[in-house]
């Protein structure tokens, strides 16, 4: 009996360890993302052969910080759709937070006329593997020899509350550096966000 208990404990520990070990870090190559979009179609990063990379942003409907950045996410996609398209992902538990359900995502996307994909990470596996902690949480991806590599992680800019007072546009500055073939200077930033609502 105790052996079984120990075995179960070891399995549980290794599952936890797997989540920690596989959370991506800067310069890691990411696996493809295969998730359903609000239009019902499955989306893969391979659907964008001409893109130079991606602005992957974990976001959601209900969080005040995600709302504060919604317009800026729309603008980023307007500016970079052909080179670094926005891939928005919602990983929140839609049962505990009905505002973040797949149905609510479809409504939000239509209402705000998103021209980028808004993917539903129902199993939360994608958020786990990225190590995403909150919304919004950005991962800037650059294609390097057919590998999708993480070049920047963190906030969109340095002022969530007042767009006109922004001094550093982290994501745009990172893209500008990549376009010039230079190194990204600010590779990681921290920002307040709503914790991802794990199941």
């Amino acid at each position, binding site marked *: 009996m105790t052996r079984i208990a120990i075995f179960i404990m070891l399995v549980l520990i290794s599952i936890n360890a797997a989540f920690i070990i596989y959370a991506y870090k800067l310069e890691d190559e990411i696996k493809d993302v295969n998730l359903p979009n609000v239009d019902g179609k499955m989306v893969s990063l391979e659907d964008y052969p001409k893109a130079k990379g991606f602005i992957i942003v974990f976001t959601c409907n209900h*969080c*005040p910080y995600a709302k504060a950045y919604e317009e800026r996410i729309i603008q980023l996609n307007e500016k970079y759709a052909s080179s670094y398209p926005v891939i928005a992902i919602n990983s929140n538990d839609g049962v505990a937070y009905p505002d973040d359900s797949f149905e609510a995502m479809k409504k939000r996307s239509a209402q705000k006329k998103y021209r980028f994909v808004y993917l539903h990470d129902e199993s939360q596996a994608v958020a786990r593997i990225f190590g995403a*902690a909150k919304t919004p949480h950005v991962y800037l991806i650059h294609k390097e020899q057919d590998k999708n590599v993480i070049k920047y992680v*963190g906030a969109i800019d340095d*002022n*969530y509350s007042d767009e006109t007072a922004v001094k550093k546009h982290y994501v745009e500055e990172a893209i500008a550096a990549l376009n010039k073939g230079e190194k990204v200077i600010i590779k990681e930033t*921290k*920002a*307040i966000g709503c914790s991802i609502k794990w199941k």
Partner: protein
Amino acid sequence: MKSLLVLLLVPFFMTQTSTVEVVKWEGLEKALNNKNGKIKIVNFWITGCKTCVEELPQFEQLHRSFGSQVEVILVNLDKESIEETKVNPVLEKNRITAKVFLLNEPDQNSWIGKVEPSWSGAIPATVIIDQNNNRRLYEKVLTYAELVKIIHDIHKP
């Protein structure tokens, strides 16, 4: 008789709701580093975060029950412009008498790592600072029982 009743009721009316103190990072840092021998329970919240607001009463309970051993510091991260319309009503509704700061530092990357390097910035979040300035981060909702256990664990030799 009537005056006696008034005297008995005075303590209830004297527990006034906390007044928000608006600070920059330096002001909060000073409060976090203040060596008064108490364990500091530092909770970060905004009015728009439902789970954060639901957590407030237990921090208040902790402040009232363990006030001699612990110092509860509630750090509100809302915009200063909604202090009167949104923040104060939440404090009044929950009868908050613990210390409340409004941290007016929109450049969050400049201070999150200084609170605790391992903090991603996700809220709800609570940082517990013991008397030796060791910091423990809880990037989740804490129950009252968990909070009490953490305090007891710190007190153990």
